[in-house]
């Protein structure tokens, strides 16, 4: 009998004390209900509860948590079915709301994310979805925050891990990419050929022009040289003629001054005759009256002289 009482007392005290003293670790929070109504939050550290009256309904983890959303088939605006794989990071920020606002917030977060994702992707075309992860993230933010505000849960970020278009579409995309690159290559080649031809033609043209110009200049110079030479030659000739004339004039003058008369003339003519007769094939016959004739020439000269003297 005594033993039974002892056992009962010990068990009651054990349970009583274990219900009273609560230690909550960091980043966890408990929701305390007093007689079924929300009373307070159990914050990290040592907490004392009144057994039986106070009851801890649930503990929440306040750290950021991850939830994988299984790959979803979503239809884009241009009617392509894509498989989209997302991961959600969320955090409980309002433990009261997370307890009383929604029955299962993890499930809720998953569902609202997939629904919103479908809605957003449904407004985009395939190409946009593949490149616009940033836009998807920012679009999803507002829609999700509005919904989860009442749940005490904040969705930190929704990351699109993978977007998989169907195989045939992917094939087509590959082909398109290849064709695009081919086109670029061909265009570049054609451009190179064009430039090559243009450059060659230009070089040719320039070389021809330069050659023609050179020819022209050479000919001009040549002509100029010829002209100058001729001018100089003419000048020289003129001067020579002048000089000869002057010399002749002075000779005649000098001869005159020296007193040129018939005797000298006759003497000179004889001299000239001897000079003539010296030639090997020449035989000179001088008629005797030729001398007289010459003498008569002298007489004429004398006459001129006299006339001049009279004047």
């Amino acid at each position, binding site marked *: 009998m*005594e033993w039974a*009482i*002892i056992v009962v*007392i*010990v068990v009651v*005290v*054990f349970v*009583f*004390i*274990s219900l*009273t*003293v609560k*230690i909550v670790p*960091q*980043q966890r929070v408990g929701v305390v209900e007093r007689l079924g109504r929300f009373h307070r939050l159990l*914050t*990290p*550290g*040592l*907490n*004392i509860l009144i057994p039986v009256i106070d009851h801890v309904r649930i503990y929440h983890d*306040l750290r950021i948590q991850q939830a994988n959303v299984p790959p979803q088939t979503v239809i884009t605006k241009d009617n392509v079915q894509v498989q989209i794989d997302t991961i959600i990071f969320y*955090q409980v*920020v*309002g433990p009261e*709301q997370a307890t009383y606002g929604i029955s299962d917030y993890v499930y809720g977060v998953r569902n609202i994310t997939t629904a919103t994702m479908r809605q957003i992707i449904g407004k985009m075309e395939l190409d946009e979805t593949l490149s616009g992860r940033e836009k998807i993230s*920012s679009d999803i*933010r*507002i829609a*999700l*925050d*509005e919904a*989860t*505000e*009442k*749940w*005490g*849960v*904040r*969705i*930190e*970020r929704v990351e699109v891990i993978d977007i998989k278009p169907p195989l045939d579409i992917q094939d087509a995309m590959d082909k398109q990419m290849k064709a695009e690159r081919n086109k670029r290559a061909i265009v570049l080649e054609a451009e190179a050929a064009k430039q090559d031809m243009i450059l060659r033609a230009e070089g040719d043209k320039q070389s021809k022009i330069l050659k023609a110009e050179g020819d022209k200049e050479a000919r001009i110079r040549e002509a100029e040289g010829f002209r100058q030479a001729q001018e100089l030659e003419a000048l020289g000739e003129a001067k020579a003629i002048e000089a000869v004339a002057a010399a002749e004039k002075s000779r005649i003058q000098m001869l005159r001054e020296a007193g040129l008369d018939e005797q000298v003339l006759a003497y000179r003519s004889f001299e000239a005759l001897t000079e003539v007769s010296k030639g090997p094939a020449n035989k000179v016959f001088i008629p005797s009256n030729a001398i007289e004739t010459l003498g008569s020439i002298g007489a004429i000269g004398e006459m001129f002289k006299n006339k001049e003297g009279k004047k």
Partner: protein
Amino acid sequence: MHTWVIWLIAAGILLVLEMMTLTFYLLWISVGAGAAALVAWIAPDAFLLQVITGCVIALVLTAFTKPLAKRLRASKGYEDAGTELVGKQGVVVEAIEPGQYGIVKIGGDTWSATSTQQIGKDELVRVMKRGSSIIEVERWEEFI
């Protein structure tokens, strides 16, 4: 074997368990068992008296935990980054129209934000109030 030895062994086991689990209430029961051992040493035959003494001591110590808990609560622990959001400066990433949500970037995080005013993109804002996932902001200049 003497009863006080049994009590002492029980106190030791409880103490070891407490050290391993850190539940705190086992500590008080261990101390209670220690007190019971003391009583058993004086009056080895009154077993019920020993049990009641131990239980009362444990309960009294538990009652005294409350002031201790209060004192411990005053000391600082880890603070969540989200709790200190009010008063911080943020940059508007997507314009906030009255009645609609915009996006504000605070530190590295983006938050949906509402405001009574219309705030354009790239303006600086101060966080006024924080809900669980939506914050209320005002233009930064109005505080200076």
